[in-house]
């Protein structure tokens, strides 16, 4: 049997194992070992298992992961989400659908200091949905906008998924973050457009809130300041070359702790919960990296990406057609897999292909981040939908799934824009770095 065929069987076996509820990292490792032995023989085992996992988890660049996770964990418990929401509520809440738009804005700003979509969705659901309900907003709109807004946490830097993509593909984390800025803002704008269209077609879904007075509006700006400060300290220190991404992440984690302390939220319980969350998230990521290291060696030696390239040449597929096919594969996988696993399983196959087709790896990173983020709101495994249904009283998963449809349409528009206009992602990095 030829190595590419073994590679293809390996990918199929991997999906079967994952479907049978084997932890993704273990499934990757087991398939990597069996496939690697089938292609390279038993002698390769010592190299693959003896050095690859350790070499993968020891680099300094990985230090950035737990630090950004810690920053998000403390930021989520510092009460920043409520302040952001109240601020935007005061500024634009009186528009029709204004609370839903304020939720998008608050999610975007909170995502800028949190970096995790699940945390953004969970915290914003607790803050925004009761408020929207009290004003008579339709549950579908409230849940949909929080679920979609939550995904902005992945796209708007600093983003954990972007960091992992940059490390796995040896790209600059700073360039990745810059490349995510415009697409992140574009996503937020398109979500607001989706809200506007929904409330224009069905005004009863979103009654107007009373207009805030001038004093409340002034106070709103003050509430935005801590987040702007934290975001500015993290991103500014990277782009002004004051700090490396790891140092900036440490500044962010420390800053989030100080903010929590300043807002009198830094109790022993908050410290314990934040540290446990940091440890658990980091452990999950590191174990997946161990599995990926073994799988990657197998995929590389199977020459599966080369076979795919030959197939593309044989069928004369245009490069953009290949990109569209990859995006469709990601959207389908996103219905069943979580973002990180999906990205790490597919990167060893797709990344060499993209490079050989001559595409920019940073642009592809933004595209991958955007499309895996859509998986968070596509049923049946849309994690944000589950989270909203579980943290909100009397909210059904089906209601959230219905409500998210207009935002999924906005996501598809954004994806097409990003795929067809690479400069949307590459403009800022080429200008500033």
């Amino acid at each position, binding site marked *: 049997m030829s190595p590419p065929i073994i590679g293809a069987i390996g990918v199929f076996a991997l999906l079967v*194992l*994952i*479907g*049978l*509820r*084997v*932890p*993704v*990292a*273990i*499934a990757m*490792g*087991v398939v990597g*070992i069996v496939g690697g032995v089938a292609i390279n023989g038993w002698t390769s*085992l*010592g190299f*693959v*298992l*003896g*050095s690859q*996992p*350790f070499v993968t*988890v*020891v*680099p*300094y660049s*990985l*230090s950035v*992961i*737990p*630090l950004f996770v*810690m920053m998000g964990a403390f930021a989520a418990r510092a009460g920043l989400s409520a302040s952001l929401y109240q601020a935007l509520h005061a500024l634009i809440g009186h528009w029709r659908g204004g609370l839903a738009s304020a939720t998008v804005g608050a999610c975007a700003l909170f995502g800028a200091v949190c970096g995790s979509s699940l945390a953004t969705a969970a915290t914003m659901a607790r803050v925004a949905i009761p408020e929207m309900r009290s004003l008579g907003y339709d549950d579908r709109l409230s849940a949909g906008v929080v679920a979609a807004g939550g995904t902005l946490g992945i796209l708007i830097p600093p983003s954990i998924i972007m960091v992992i993509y940059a490390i796995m593909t040896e790209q600059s984390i700073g360039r990745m973050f810059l490349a995510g800025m415009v697409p992140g803002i574009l996503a937020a704008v398109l979500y607001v457009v989706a809200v506007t269209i929904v409330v224009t077609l069905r005004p009863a879904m979103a009654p107007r809130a009373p207009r805030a007075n001038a004093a409340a509006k002034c106070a709103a700006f003050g509430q935005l300041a801590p987040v702007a400060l934290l975001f500015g300290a993290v991103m500014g220190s990277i782009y002004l070359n004051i*700090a490396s991404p*790891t*140092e900036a992440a*440490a*500044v962010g*984690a*420390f800053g989030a702790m100080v903010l929590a302390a300043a807002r009198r939220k830094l109790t022993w319980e908050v410290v*314990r919960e934040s*540290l*446990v969350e*940091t*440890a*658990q998230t*980091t*452990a*999950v*990521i*590191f*174990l*997946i990296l*161990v599995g990926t290291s073994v799988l990657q060696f197998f995929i590389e030696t199977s020459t599966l990406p080369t076979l795919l390239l030959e197939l593309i040449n044989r069928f004369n597929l245009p490069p953009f057609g290949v990109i569209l096919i990859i995006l469709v594969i990601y959207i389908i996988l996103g219905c*069943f*897999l*979580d973002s*990180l*696993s999906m990205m790490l399983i597919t990167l060893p196959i797709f990344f060499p292909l993209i490079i050989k087709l001559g595409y920019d790896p940073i642009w592809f990173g933004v595209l991958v981040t955007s499309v895996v983020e859509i998986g968070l709101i596509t049923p*049946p*495994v849309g994690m944000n939908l589950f989270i909203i249904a579980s943290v909100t009283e009397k909210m059904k998963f089906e209601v959230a799934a219905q409500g998210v449809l207009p935002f999924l349409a906005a996501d598809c528009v954004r994806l097409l824009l990003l795929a067809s206009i690479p400069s949307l992602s590459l403009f800022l990095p080429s200008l500033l770095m």
Partner: protein
Amino acid sequence: MTFESASERVLRFVSFAATFMFVVGVLLTMADIFLRSVSTLTVHGMVDMMQLCVLTGAMLAIPHAFLSDQHVAIDLFVEHAPTRVQLALRIVAALLAIAFLSGVLWFSYQQALNEAHDTSQTIGIPMTWYWAPFLAGIALSVFANFVLMVQLWRHGLPAKAIE
């Protein structure tokens, strides 16, 4: 106290204790940035120490994540299967994890012995200091999966999974 609950407590404690390595990493980095900005001093060997802190924190948190079912696994295709099938699949998954992680442990241990006299690049920390938390994390993960198997065998699926 049963074997399973005692093991769970120990692994939870190890995981929690390891989280402070991240805090040490943050504080060292802040100290380094502060010193750099007010003087010509730096924390010598920052990169090496940060690597050690993060590696230790992350690897020692992996074992307990198996027991608390934190590692990413997809329920979708098996959640409606009969309880017995789900139980069998979880035991098979734990067995696969034991097999894979034991392989990593054995071959990594051999590699660690080969690198026993190497040191880190900046301040010459012995590489065994890096290998130790890595191997400990993997060994405890093998143990955690063994505990998980015993737990599943004796008590069946956790209540959360049956809901």
